[in-house]
């Protein structure tokens, strides 16, 4: 029996402060519809969607405005009734300007859904279920936004035996998955049931970090008797929710370098995405809104909000009382891996787990010192890389050697930068190096 099994954890990692108290107890509430929404065509991993509307078209809430292009792609739906004003380059949360559909939302609209036939999931075959999930534009809501239907249809030679549900939410500050589990445990478990049907697996494990006892209790209380679903309380440690770490913690299986979880018979899905799958069959609603944690010392009324996809950051912050005097940096996602935003007009996308407004005291500029080879980064790296060596190579531009030192296994979790006493921006160096490596590969 491996150590990981007994401790329900992985080795290495870091212990940042969890900072979840700001929004952890706030019930999920709905924000009012904004006056404009911006729907980027690329909100998911894979090919961007192709628009099927034109400027001037009127769309109902829930209508498809862009269709999937190829297998690894997802359609985009209108999250509010209104008129398409433009299809143009708009600010994107990744910092670029990317093609997006602008919709002027109809004021005073009841925002009712177009009457639709809600599929009775119990009568559907796995293929039909997967098709419905694809049509619903469902992607992973944990951040990476990988199209869910691709995960649900593994290649025929893969033998999947366990579905692992990720309820860790190991990023500090974020409480989206936490509130979902506390408030919608039945929906989560319906989603688990549908996923198990699609994948044909008998067993599912839900991993939740121990700092969410109410979520663990809620899910346990809702467990159905006829399914082999287990709830595992996991050690509070970052990045417990990283796919490969979670599989190690829950099942003691090590996903080989460069391979996918299905290689060890596992599919991992985040709790919020599972709930969204259930929603597709409960309400017929495609993925047009998601739960977003708005928190941080710089925001006046932290909370967990149901936000129409495409809502501009500006409108979401207004719905939370706005920012206070101390606000300095706005991050999409958690503080460990999240992306700082320069523009208040960026839209919330399907993959936006949270908006963290950091206060001045949290983002003081810090001097960088030479590496003193303390080795703390080696003790932190959850995939056992040598960030000290990789950092030196990155600064020297020796990308080929970095590839040899397993740069590809780095998931940019930020543990090394977090512990570095010399404040060397290791994570940033590795992200830049990965981009360079891609560029070199393309050039060849």
């Amino acid at each position: 029996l491996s150590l990981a099994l007994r401790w329900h954890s992985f080795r290495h990692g870091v212990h940042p402060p969890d900072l979840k108290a700001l929004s952890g107890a706030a019930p999920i509430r709905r924000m009012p519809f904004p006056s404009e929404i911006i729907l980027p065509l690329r909100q998911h991993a894979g090919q961007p969607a192709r628009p099927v509307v034109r400027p001037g078209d009127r769309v109902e809430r829930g209508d498809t405005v862009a269709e999937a292009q190829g297998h690894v792609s997802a359609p985009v739906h209108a999250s509010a009734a209104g008129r398409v004003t433009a299809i143009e380059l708009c600010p994107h949360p990744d910092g670029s300007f990317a093609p997006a559909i602008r919709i002027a939302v109809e004021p005073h609209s009841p925002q009712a859904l177009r009457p639709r036939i809600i599929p009775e999931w119990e009568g559907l075959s796995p293929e039909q279920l997967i098709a419905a999930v694809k049509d619903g534009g469902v992607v992973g809501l944990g951040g990476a936004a990988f199209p869910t239907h691709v995960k649900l249809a593994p290649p025929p030679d893969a033998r999947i035996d366990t579905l692992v549900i990720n309820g860790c939410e190991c990023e500090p500050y974020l409480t989206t998955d936490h509130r979902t589990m506390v408030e919608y445990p039945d929906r989560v478990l319906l989603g688990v049931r549908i996923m198990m049907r699609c994948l044909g697996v008998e067993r599912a494990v839900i991993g939740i970090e121990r700092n969410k006892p109410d979520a663990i209790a809620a899910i346990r209380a809702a467990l159905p008797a006829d399914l082999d679903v287990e709830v595992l309380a996991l050690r509070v440690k970052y990045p417990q929710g990283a796919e490969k770490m979670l599989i190690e913690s829950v099942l003691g299986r090590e996903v080989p370098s460069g391979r996918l979880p299905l290689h060890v018979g596992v599919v991992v899905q985040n709790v919020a995405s599972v709930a969204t799958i259930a929603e597709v069959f409960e309400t017929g609603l495609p993925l047009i809104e998601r739960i977003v944690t708005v928190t941080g010392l710089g925001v006046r009324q932290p909370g967990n909000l149901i936000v129409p996809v495409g809502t501009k950051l500006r409108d979401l912050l207004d719905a939370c009382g706005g920012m206070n005097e101390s606000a300095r940096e706005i991050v999409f996602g958690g503080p460990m891996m999240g992306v700082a935003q320069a523009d208040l007009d960026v839209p919330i996308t399907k993959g936006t787990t949270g908006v963290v407004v950091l206060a001045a005291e949290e983002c003081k500029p810090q001097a960088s010192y030479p590496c003193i080879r303390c080795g703390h980064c080696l003790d932190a790296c959850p995939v056992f890389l040598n960030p000290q060596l990789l950092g030196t190579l990155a600064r020297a531009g020796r990308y080929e050697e970095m590839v040899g030192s397993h740069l590809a296994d780095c998931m940019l979790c930020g543990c090394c930068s977090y512990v570095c006493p010399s404040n060397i921006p290791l994570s940033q160096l590795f992200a830049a190096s990965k981009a360079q490596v891609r560029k070199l590969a393309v050039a060849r």
Partner: protein
Amino acid sequence: MTERQRLVTASPHLATSHSTPAIMWSVAASLVPVIATATYYFGPSALLVIAGASAGALLTERAFGPGGALRDGSAVITGLLLGLCLPAGLPMWMAFLGGGFSIGIGKLVFGGLGQNVFNPALLGRAFLQAAFPVALTTWPAQPTHWAALRGDNFALPLMSARAPDVVTGATPLGLMKFEHQATDLWSLVIGRTGGSLGETAGIVILICGGYLALRNYLNWRIPAAVFLAAGLAAAGLHALDPARYAGPLETLFSGGLMLGAVYMATDMVTSPVTNRGSWIFGVGIGLLVVIIRTWGGLAEGVMYAILLMNALVPFINRATQPRVFGTRSAAT
């Protein structure tokens, strides 16, 4: 928040409160009790020698180092540690020269903080040992008065020092090696023996090192490995011939082993980055210490043991790279 105030930085947006200067200054601060102990045993001479070494280190860093480098605290540690491995009666100018050598040749020529191969303080001490072998092995005996100087600390550079008005004594290691005369363990533990300034405070060094290890400012594996290796090797030899070879505890508490294992071998820059490497590094030092003390021409071998292992650190690092997640050979 105005547009101008908004920050856009790379993730992660959180960091630990540890910083390189905080580590360095904590190490320096943890040396205060050690220095106090040295002062208790050697009087004002201890402070004079340490001040000389530190002044040499700091002035060299200030003159030739990068701007603001003094603030990171590393030169202070080098100066203090060099001072602590010198005898109390050493003329201050020699200590000053040693401090300058430590920083100038031991660190700055390699490229400054983080780039040096050898522990700068020990390199300075090796330089002094080669340049002034007699002064470096003149150990003061018990003085007539606590405040009396333990030698001609104020001798002028390159002038022969006035004959010291104190009788020179011997170190426990010298006694053991050359006269086969053991010193009782309790005297070694509390430091009531002859020797360099920092050689005589074993228990104080252990406590201060324990504090640093708790804060993760030093890798406990290194001193643990040194103690284990040196202790076991000494125990084996002692079992063969108790009259000739010192026992394990005597080995650990005599000479510069304690100071070397806790403060010099654990220098982050010149020790391995991997934990497995740290064990190998420490064991190497422990064995070399016993080998040099037993079969070498010198009574003490901690300095050369650490410097030799410093030279091997790049190879140890390369040989002990962690196994990357997902590359287990059994994994299919």
